[in-house]
């Protein structure tokens, strides 16, 4: 009995000794800031001097802040375009790539490569590709009688240009997930449908798409979370402009906290963002559970 207890005690010590470095780091830099951020959102503070408690004033100011509202609208427009375009584009590309023909590895690699490029590198590449004066895209559009467009320089087109660029950068991720899910579709089902004379489109619509439901739900949730966190591209390409046409939530929160020193107010925005992301995720999962067919 005494011996048994000694072993369990050493288990506690060993467990904690092994887990401690990682747990300590993750708590200090991942969990403590969640609480701290909430506390900051009730203060007026500039990151240097100690803050003053001002209750809910930061939150009460939000509905009267036109730039905050513009940022929310732009983030939502961006998300509403980016998510369906990247997920649907990823699905179609994955279906096209899901066959054994010569050169398939080359096609797949071409689609995967942009996923490993940094947002900054991608943005610099597109800055030049979509250059209003010397860009390749305006040249190609000119060949078919369109343009020239201002792209990132145009108040009406900048946000859409960012959508297009980020879909290019992300689509490989959706393709990877869909390709893995496509491998899981039972071959017997496809063959049975072929024997019954089901047409290609009908097969895609009635067999492939429903069976890919779980992958689609995962991608919709994940892409939405990432879309609401858009920052790097806006910082590099447009700084929120022209005018305020590309102000998005994280860019606004960054500029408030780190250029204007309004950290308490920015923390309130950060919390609104957190609640928005968590609720959107919950809604999507709730709707998804009703729509998605799980084979297992």
């Amino acid at each position, binding site marked *: 009995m005494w011996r048994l207890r000694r072993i369990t005690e050493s288990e506690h010590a060993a467990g904690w000794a092994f887990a401690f*470095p990682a747990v300590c780091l993750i708590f200090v*830099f991942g969990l403590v800031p969640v609480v*701290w951020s909430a506390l900051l959102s009730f203060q007026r503070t500039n990151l240097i001097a100690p803050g003053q408690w001002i209750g809910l004033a930061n939150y009460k100011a939000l509905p009267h802040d036109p730039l905050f509202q513009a940022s929310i609208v732009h983030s939502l427009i961006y998300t509403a375009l980016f998510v369906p375009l990247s997920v649907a584009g990823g699905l179609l590309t994955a279906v096209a790539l899901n066959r*054994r023909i010569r050169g398939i590895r080359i096609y797949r690699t071409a689609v995967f490569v942009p996923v490993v490029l940094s947002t900054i590198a991608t943005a610099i590449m597109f800055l030049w590709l979509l250059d209003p004066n010397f860009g*390749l895209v305006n040249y190609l559009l000119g060949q078919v009688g369109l343009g020239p467009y201002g792209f990132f320089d145009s108040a009406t087109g900048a946000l859409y240009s960012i959508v297009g660029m980020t879909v290019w950068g992300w689509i490989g991720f959706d393709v990877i997930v869909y*390709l893995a899910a496509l491998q899981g579709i039972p071959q017997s089902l496809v063959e049975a449908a072929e024997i019954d004379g089901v047409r290609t489109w009908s097969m895609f619509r009635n067999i492939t798409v429903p069976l890919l439901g779980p992958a689609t739900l995962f991608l919709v949730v994940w892409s939405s979370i990432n879309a609401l966190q858009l920052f790097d591209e806006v910082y590099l390409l447009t700084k929120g402009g022209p005018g305020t046409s590309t102000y998005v939530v994280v860019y606004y929160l960054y500029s408030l906290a780190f250029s204007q020193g309004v950290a308490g107010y920015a923390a309130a925005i950060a919390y609104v963002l957190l609640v928005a992301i968590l609720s959107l995720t919950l809604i999507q999962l709730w709707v998804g559970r009703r729509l998605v067919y799980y084979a297992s």
Partner: protein
Amino acid sequence: MTSQIASQVLDPPQRPADEEEREPGRFLFSPWHLVLIPIAVVMLIPMVWMLVTSLETLNETRHFPPTLLPHTLRPGNYTQVLRQAPFARWFLNTMIVTVVTVLGNLLFCSLAGYAFARIKFFGREVVFVLLLTTLMIPFQVIMIPTFIIVKDLGLINTLNALIVPNLANAFGVFLLRQFFRTLPVELEEAARIDGASRLSVLFKIVLPLSGPALATLAVITFLWTWNDFLWPLITIYSPNTMTLQLGLTTFEGTHQTATNLLMAANVMSMLPVLLLFFLAQRYFIRGIASSGLKG
């Protein structure tokens, strides 16, 4: 996502029907090429044009219609970039930060992952759930207090500001814990009965069997750290302490009109990641599918 994703995506499993399916494809031109070629072109053109531009003269870049084939290739643009900006320094900084972060994650996530997988200790379940909740918190939401913590530790504008907060990651702990639990426990128990310590069981038995999981974690941490931008932007301001991504944006700010140099700089910044991608494609695919990456 499963751990078999990589092999499935890269090498689809052989199916019985394959032999018949394959035969016609060998002699006939599959109509799917007509779909796939345009897709590949759209994916590759931005990169190809960046490469072409990086080898042009400044005059060729200021020309419309664009110069698609430069008259002479100018690799000198690359050495000019290295002279005009502390690129070598940024490269070295990024390398230091990335290598230390990857090693830290491999060590600390292995230790913690093993504890959560195999050792029953007080508070294990609660602590594990708390770790998992951090996975749901976007970094942007906590960056202000994280900045204050790092500032109070006196790390601002040092490479440690980029390294210390990222030495361990809940995703890594979770990934390794899940993998360790799939290993046969009998092997470890036998070693324990023979008198091996927990530490030597982990390092001599468990980790040598965990190559694929460790490689996935290493590759994903590499990519996250190498490509990270927002955190260095907040914590680093001296040119000599910058990482590549941060340095690139300042270079972009000062060389907006020197497109050929900017593209050369961009190509150089991508090379290490591309090289690693082609060397370890299978682990990239697995890591990308299992983590969601690119956050």
